[in-house]
C-alpha cells in the first residue's frame, strides 16, 4: 500500500511538470493549429538560463531562495523573448504556407536551439544549485521532499493564473476569439498577430517556470533534456485534448501517474512478461486507446477541419 502511495506521489510531481509544459503546446495549437515542437527546447533554455543566473548570484553571496526568484524571473524573460522571436522568425512568414511547412520549421528550430545551447553551455551535464532546503517528509510510509511539494504548489498556482488570464481578461477573451475563428475575430478588432505572439510569450513563460521546476527536482540539466520532455508533454496535451487548457493539465498529471504506476506494477501484473522497460510503451498505449475511443482527447471538443 505504501508503494502505491509513493508511486502516486512520484507520478503527481512528474505529471505537474508535464502539465506545465503541455500548456505551452496547447496554447499555441489552440490558437493557430500549429504544433510548436521547439517548445521543449524553450523549456531547456529556461533551465539553463536559470542555472547560470542562480549560480552567479549564489556565488556572489545572495541567499539561494532569493537567487532562485531572480533565476525564475530571468529565465521567464529570456524564454518570453525567445518564444516571441520564434514566432516572428520561424512561424509568421509561413502562416499561409502548407501545414507541413511550419511543422518542419518547428523541428528545425528545435535542432537549432539545441545546438545553440550546446555552444553556449557546453556538452557536460550541469548541476542545478539547490534553491530551497530539501527537507524530507514521511507520510504513510511514503517519502517526499519539500521540493516536490513546492513543484506541485507552484504548478497549481501557475495554472490557476493562466486560467484567470484566459477566462477573466480582455487578452484571454481575444485569445479565445482568435482560437474560434481568426478572421471573424479580426473583423471584431482583434489584432491576430498580437494575440498569437502573446500566446507564444505566455506559453514560453510557463515553460521557463517548468524548466526551473525540472532543474530543482532532478538537479541536473543538459542541452538535450528538452527533447524527451517536450515529446512527453506533447503526448500529455494530446491525451487531454490538444487546444484545451483543462485537458492539458489533466493530461499531464494523468500521464505522470500512468508512467509511475505503469513502471511500478506492469511487471507484477503481467507476471514479469513486461518489465519496466515498457514504461513508455505503457504510456503511449494508453494514449492510443484514448485516441481510438475519443479521437479529440479526453477533454477535447469536436473541431472542424480547421485545426
Amino acid at each position: 500500500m505504501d508503494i502505491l502511495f509513493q508511486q502516486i506521489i512520484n507520478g503527481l510531481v512528474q505529471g505537474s511538470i508535464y502539465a506545465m509544459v503541455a500548456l505551452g503546446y496547447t496554447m499555441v495549437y489552440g490558437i493557430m493549429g500549429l504544433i510548436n515542437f521547439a517548445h521543449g527546447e524553450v523549456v531547456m533554455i529556461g533551465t539553463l538560463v536559470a542555472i547560470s543566473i542562480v549560480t552567479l548570484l549564489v556565488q556572489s553571496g545572495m541567499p539561494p531562495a532569493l537567487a532562485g526568484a531572480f533565476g525564475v524571473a530571468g529565465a521567464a524573460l529570456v524564454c518570453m523573448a525567445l518564444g516571441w522571436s520564434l514566432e516572428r522568425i520561424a512561424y509568421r512568414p509561413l502562416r499561409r504556407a502548407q501545414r507541413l511547412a511550419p511543422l518542419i520549421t518547428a523541428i528545425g528550430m528545435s535542432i537549432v536551439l539545441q545546438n545553440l545551447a550546446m555552444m553556449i553551455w557546453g556538452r557536460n551535464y550541469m548541476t542545478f544549485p539547490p534553491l530551497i532546503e530539501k527537507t524530507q517528509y514521511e507520510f504513510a510510509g511514503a517519502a517526499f521532499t519539500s521540493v516536490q511539494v513546492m513543484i506541485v504548489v507552484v504548478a497549481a498556482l501557475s495554472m490557476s493564473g493562466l486560467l484567470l488570464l484566459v477566462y477573466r481578461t480582455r487578452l484571454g477573451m481575444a485569445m479565445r476569439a482568435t482560437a474560434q475563428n481568426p478572421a471573424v475575430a479580426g473583423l471584431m478588432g482583434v489584432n491576430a498577430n498580437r494575440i498569437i505572439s502573446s500566446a507564444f510569450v505566455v506559453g514560453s513563460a510557463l515553460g521557463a517556470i517548468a524548466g526551473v521546476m525540472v532543474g530543482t527536482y532532478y538537479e541536473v540539466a543538459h542541452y538535450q533534456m528538452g527533447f524527451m520532455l517536450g515529446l512527453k508533454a506533447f503526448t500529455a496535451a494530446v491525451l487531454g485534448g490538444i487546444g484545451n487548457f483543462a485537458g492539458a493539465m489533466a493530461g499531464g498529471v494523468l500521464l505522470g501517474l500512468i508512467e509511475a504506476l505503469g513502471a511500478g506494477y506492469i511487471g507484477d501484473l503481467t507476471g514479469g512478461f513486461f518489465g519496466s522497460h515498457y514504461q513508455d510503451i505503457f504510456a503511449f498505449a494508453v494514449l492510443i486507446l484514448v485516441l481510438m475511443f475519443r479521437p479529440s482527447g479526453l477533454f477535447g471538443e469536436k473541431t472542424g477541419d480547421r485545426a
Partner: protein
Amino acid sequence: MQLSRFPGITLVLAASIALIGCGQKEEPKPQAAAPADSAASAPKPEVVVKIGHVAPITGPQAHLGKDNENGARLAIEELNAQGVEIGGAKARFELLPEDDQADPKQGTLVAQKLVDAKVNGVIGHLNSGTTIPASKLYADAGIPQISPSATNPKYTQQGFATAFRVMANDIQQGKVLGEFVAKLGVKTVAIIDDRTAYGQGLADEFRKSAEAVGLKVVANEYTNDKATDFKAILTKIKSTKAELVFYGGMDAQGGPMAKQMKELGLKAKFLGGDGVCTPEFMKLGGPATEGHYCSLPGVPLDKMAKGPEFRDKFTKKFGAEIQLYAPNVYDAVMVMADAMKRAGSAEPARYLPEIGKTSHDGVTARIEFDEKGDLKGGAISIYQYAGGQLAYVETLGGGAGAASAAGVAEAVKEAAEATGDAAKAVAGAATEAAKEAVKEAADAVKGAAEATKAAVEKK
C-alpha cells in the same frame, strides 16, 4: 500552382544531380593527390595515415565522447611530434573524428563514412551498442578497429579478425563484481540496466555471477540512456528491501539515480560498472554518492607507471580533467601506430597481423591480445566514492594478481637496475625515480592489504 511547382522540382533535381556529379568528380581527387604529393616530395617520402575516431560528441554522453577524442588527439599529436617512420617513410597521422551520438544507427552511418574515406584504422566506438554493428562494416572492408571502451563480450565473439579492444570485457567485469558484492556481505540485490548493449550486457553478466555466488536477485528493472526520472522503479525496488542496487549504465543516469535513491529513503548500496566510475557521476549525484561503489577495468591511473605523467599532459593540454576512457583511447592509438611501425606499412591488410602480436607497455596496462582480440588478463579495480573522490578499494579478477605482481616485480627490477651501475652514471635523478618506484610498489601493496582488511572487517 502546379505548373509553377514543376520548375522548382526540376531545379532541385538538377542541383542534386550536379551535386552528386561534383561529389563523384571530387572523390578520386584526394587519392590522386596523395601519391602525387609523396612523389613530389620524393627526397623525403611522406605517408599519410588516416585514423578514424568515433565517439558520441553530441547527446547525453557527449562529455565522455569528447574525453575520448581528446585522448586520441593527444596520441596523434605526440606521434607526429616524434616523427614516426613507417617503412622508411615519414608518417603523418591524421585524425578523422566522427560523432555517432551513442546511437547504433548513427554508428553504422559514420562507420560507412570512414570506410569510404579509406581510413587506415579506426579507434572506437565508445559504446558497445555502436561498436558491435559498426564492427561488421570495418571487418568487411578489412579495416582494423580497436575499441577503447566497448566492453560487451559480443564485440570480439563475432569472429572478426579486425576487432580488438584494450579493456577487459563484461564477462570479466560482471564476474568480479558479483564476487565483490558477496564479499560485502550483501544477500539480496536489485538490478537496473539502461537497455543498451553495454548496460544490458554488464547487468546480465553481473546477474549470472551474483546468482553463481548465491545472491538473491529480488528485482530486475529497466530504464533508458536518456531518462532522468527513476523514482518509479526505485520505489518498486524499495519495496523488495534489496540491500544493493546494481546499475548497468552510464554516469548521466547513475548520478541522478543515486540522488533519487536517497530522496526515497532507500538504504541500499549502489554499485555500477565503468560507465559510472567518473567525476561526472559524483558531480551529478552529489553527497548522495558517498559510500557507493563502482568498478573500472584496469588498475588505477595513479598506480600505473605512466599514469600520473599522462594525467599531467592531458590536463595541461585540454584544461580539463580526464573523464574516463581517454587513457585507453591514447593506448589504442599507440597500439595501432606500433603495429604499423613493426609491419613497416600503414596498409590495413599488412599491419593487421601485427596488432595481434602486440606487446605494448601502455598507460593503462601492458597490452596483449588473445586470439579473439580481447585484452589478455584484464584486471578490474573496485572504487568507493568518498568525499567527492574515487577511493581505490582493490583490484580483482582474471590476471589481476599476476598483473599487479608483475607490475611490482617490474618496478623492483627497474629500481634494482637503477640503483645498480646505471645509478652511478645518472646520479641522483635515477635513484630518485627508483625510490619513487619502490615507494609506489609499496603503496600498492599497502593499498591491497588495507582493502583486504576492510573487506574482512565488513564480513
